[in-house]
């Protein structure tokens, strides 16, 4: 029975849209500004000023609904002298959804007036 449920999950990647909190919008704005770029959680934290414990649930949530996709860095930690990072980038769905969200909220490029 557990196997059946896991198989079902693979086919239910598209889920309802996530709640667009202030923090989520800030993360989306960062990715939407440079859609071709891949960012690690630490990059997002550095550029938004948010703490890691806030960032990672948002990244996982956006990945689960298909707005972001992620993969491990292609490097050998021993050669690089540091652990490999998980890199996220905006999908086409994520780009369209974020643009639609910004338009609906009346915030050009996700820049909220009181925090611009």
């Amino acid at each position, binding site marked *: *029975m*557990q196997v*059946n*449920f*896991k198989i*079902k999950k693979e086919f*239910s990647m598209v*889920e*309802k849209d996530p709640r667009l909190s202030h923090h989520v919008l800030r993360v989306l704005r960062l990715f939407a500004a440079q859609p071709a770029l891949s960012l*690690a*959680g*630490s990059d997002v*934290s550095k550029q938004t000023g948010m*703490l*890691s*414990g*806030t960032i*990672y*649930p948002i990244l*996982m*949530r956006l990945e*689960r609904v298909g707005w972001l996709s992620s993969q491990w860095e292609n490097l050998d930690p021993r050669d690089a002298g*540091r*652990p*490999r*990072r*998980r890199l996220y980038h905006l999908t086409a769905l994520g780009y369209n959804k974020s643009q639609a969200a910004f338009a609906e909220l009346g915030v050009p490029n996700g820049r909220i007036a009181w925090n611009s």
Partner: protein
Amino acid sequence: MELVISVVVGVLIVEAYVWLPKVSEWLIERAVQRVRSEDQDRCREEWKAGLDALPNTAIKLAHALSYHGTARRINADFFENELTEINALIKECDHKHSGLVVRFGAWKESLGRLTRQWLDLLLSRQELGLAFSGLKARVMEVPNEEVASSFQKAVTTFETAAETFDNLASASAFDLLAALLTVSIDRSTERLNHVKGLILRSSEKRDQVTALLGHRDVSPDMLDTLLGELASDLHTVKDIYEDDNWGDDDSLRELKRIMAVREGAERSATPGVS
């Protein structure tokens, strides 16, 4: 004295800087342990790499402390989504159940109507038979050969039609099919009620699992397992509803065919009576 204090403070600071990284790693590991098993390896590697990228020990500690509610938020997102899917499955099963209830109602109504029409047909066949028996007797008494010949033709037409009527659509075939359809509907109704019971039990289980969400003592893996079993049960129920073997469309079609044949044969016989 001031020198001693300075030295002690210096030593404490150095010791703190030695221990702080271990504290940070411990905080992250504590957060990882609270996430579902499936996500733990990834989270551990990703979060530790994130910590490694930070510039100094103090900032690392601040970030490590921020992981305090992270597992709860990640798990809450996951289970909220799973419950949404389960609610959608329950709604779908309810919808299919309602559809089948309507279908069974229509079958029962059709069967009732056909049975009433069949009885009417049998009655009119009997009346027609009696009418022509009367006519047949009177034909013998009519002196006019031409009139007698016309009556005789009408009687022959009726007898031929009646024979066709009786051969093409036997009462026993109709009765048997009607009985089979009744049994099929009754069995399907019983099965439908049993399946509805499964949906109700799944709904109760869903409510129990919902109540467990957010409980500190309940592990996310246990919730994952419960939700997995619930989803699997609902998929099984959904498959049962989609099974084509509900009721008996073929028997109903055959009943209607017999009825049409009888009606056609009766119409052929009727013009002979005037």
